[in-house]
């Protein structure tokens, strides 16, 4: 078990929350409230200056890939220098994963932290273009709140680089880096082939830094309080706090800020060992609750079970639901959300979805399970993006975790006591090319 820097619950309680408003915080901090809580935006007046602090802090991306932030910034800084191009920076709030709500919540409750972070990375890499990319459907009033925040910052003269707001179409892949850059450049929100990386050649061919909005919020605080402060919670190898979207049996998502390394049993509440837990959303992993309850929320622990922290999604499947039925519905969604550009994904995902529907439904044919396993193994790693790999991992973990359910279905029984779906699946998916733009 990894060591947690703050040993006592009290110590952690003192440090958290950092991003989310504290107990005394008003809903949706305005600029004045933001500055009175955190102080002014600490520009360094020097490009590249922030990168050393970020390396010392050990901040990794909070969008799912956990890539070291200082390395991404350095890559963009170097590419800009080498190619003599002015870079661009993008705050990625697309949050295309339906089961995740933490970025929308952050943008609602603490937009100024995100805008601060965006200005700081723009300064660090010398960017002249800054974009905040948000999810079109979840815009609700977030769009209005964000425009208000930008207007406040404009009249206070806070931002040095003007920020554009842009919307991601409600597609599962729209938040992936190359799809985002593709869309901002006027194309559809579908992935492109790597190489080149967007840090090398992205928006309008310029080196482009894409960071998740939560990552930028942490960055805005590290710039104020320093790397040691950041490391006061979390683990030695995975420091800091993170936002998590927790869904327990009642289905309502709870967004909570937790230290990395927190035991999953503290997040899962009353879950029985026979139930199942989904870690990481629809590219993530099902595990028996008995196993999940022994793990902590950090990659060192989760990797032992083949899982990852990802974007902090933790879902406990209620005992009166069927994991096969839920997975079948999610994989059908994943298949419909394929960009359809790559043969293995275009061919494999719909077949996997149909096979799962068969296993979840009445009388599956004897070869269906073997086909499903073969297809999952075949598509992984063979697309331009990680959609087929993620879908395959999700499917394989479902087969491993719900093996007993497969048997039950073969005998004409099912664990589901209600037809109501538990996992959140968006109703409408892409019908035509316009839906990707």
């Amino acid at each position, binding site marked *: 078990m990894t060591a947690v820097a703050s040993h006592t619950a009290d110590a952690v309680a003192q440090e958290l929350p950092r991003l989310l408003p504290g107990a005394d915080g008003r809903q949706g901090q305005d600029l004045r409230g933001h500055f009175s809580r955190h102080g002014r935006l600490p520009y360094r007046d020097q490009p590249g200056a922030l990168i050393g602090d970020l390396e010392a802090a050990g901040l990794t991306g909070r969008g799912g890939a956990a890539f070291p932030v200082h390395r991404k910034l350095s890559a963009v800084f170097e590419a800009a220098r080498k190619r003599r191009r002015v870079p661009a920076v993008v705050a990625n709030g697309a949050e295309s994963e339906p089961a995740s709500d933490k970025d929308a919540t952050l943008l609602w409750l603490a937009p100024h932290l995100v805008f601060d972070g965006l200005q700081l990375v723009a300064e660090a890499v010398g960017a002249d273009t800054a974009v905040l990319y948000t999810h079109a459907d979840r815009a609700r009033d977030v769009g209005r709140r964000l425009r208000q925040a930008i207007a406040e910052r404009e009249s206070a003269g806070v931002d040095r680089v003007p920020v554009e707001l842009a919307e991601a179409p409600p597609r599962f892949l729209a938040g992936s880096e190359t799809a985002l850059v593709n869309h901002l450049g006027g194309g559809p929100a579908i992935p492109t*082939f790597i190489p080149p990386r967007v840090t090398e050649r992205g928006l309008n061919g310029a080196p482009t830094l894409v960071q998740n909005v939560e990552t930028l919020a942490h960055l805005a605080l590290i710039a104020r309080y320093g790397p040691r402060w950041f490391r006061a919670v979390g683990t030695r190898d995975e420091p800091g706090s993170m936002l998590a979207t927790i869904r327990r049996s009642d289905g309502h998502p709870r967004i909570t800020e937790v230290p990395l390394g927190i035991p999953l049993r503290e997040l899962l509440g009353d879950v029985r060992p026979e139930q199942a837990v989904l870690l990481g959303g629809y590219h993530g992993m099902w595990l028996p609750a008995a196993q999940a309850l022994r793990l902590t929320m950090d990659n060192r622990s989760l990797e032992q079970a083949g899982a990852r922290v990802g974007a902090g999604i933790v879902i406990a499947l209620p005992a009166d639901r069927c994991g096969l039925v839920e997975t079948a519905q999610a994989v059908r969604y994943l298949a419909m959300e394929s960009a359809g550009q790559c*043969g*293995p994904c275009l061919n494999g995902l719909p077949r996997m979805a149909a096979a799962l529907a068969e296993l979840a439904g009445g009388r599956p044919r004897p070869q269906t399970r073997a086909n499903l396993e073969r297809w999952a193994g075949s598509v992984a790693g063979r697309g331009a993006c990680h959609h087929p790999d993620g879908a395959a991992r999700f499917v394989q973990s479902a087969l491993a975790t719900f093996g007993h359910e497969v048997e039950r279905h073969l005998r004409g029984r099912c664990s589901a006591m209600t037809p109501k779906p538990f996992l959140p699946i968006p109703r409408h998916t892409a019908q035509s090319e316009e839906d990707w733009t």
Partner: protein
Amino acid sequence: MSEKLVVNPIDCEGHGVCAELLPEMITLDEWGYPVIDSRPVPPGLVRHVRTAVSGCPALALRLLRG
């Protein structure tokens, strides 16, 4: 210097010429799309790899350095 043979799966149309020209490193999946050996290209095969790369009707194959 190690080189890796990769396919751009977006450009790939599943013609299958590559598997014909380089069976040592490329097989086709059940839908006709290439499964490529991800190990570095053995020096003895470099010439055949280059033939496969230029033989692809979609120009989807690439030899990457390092």
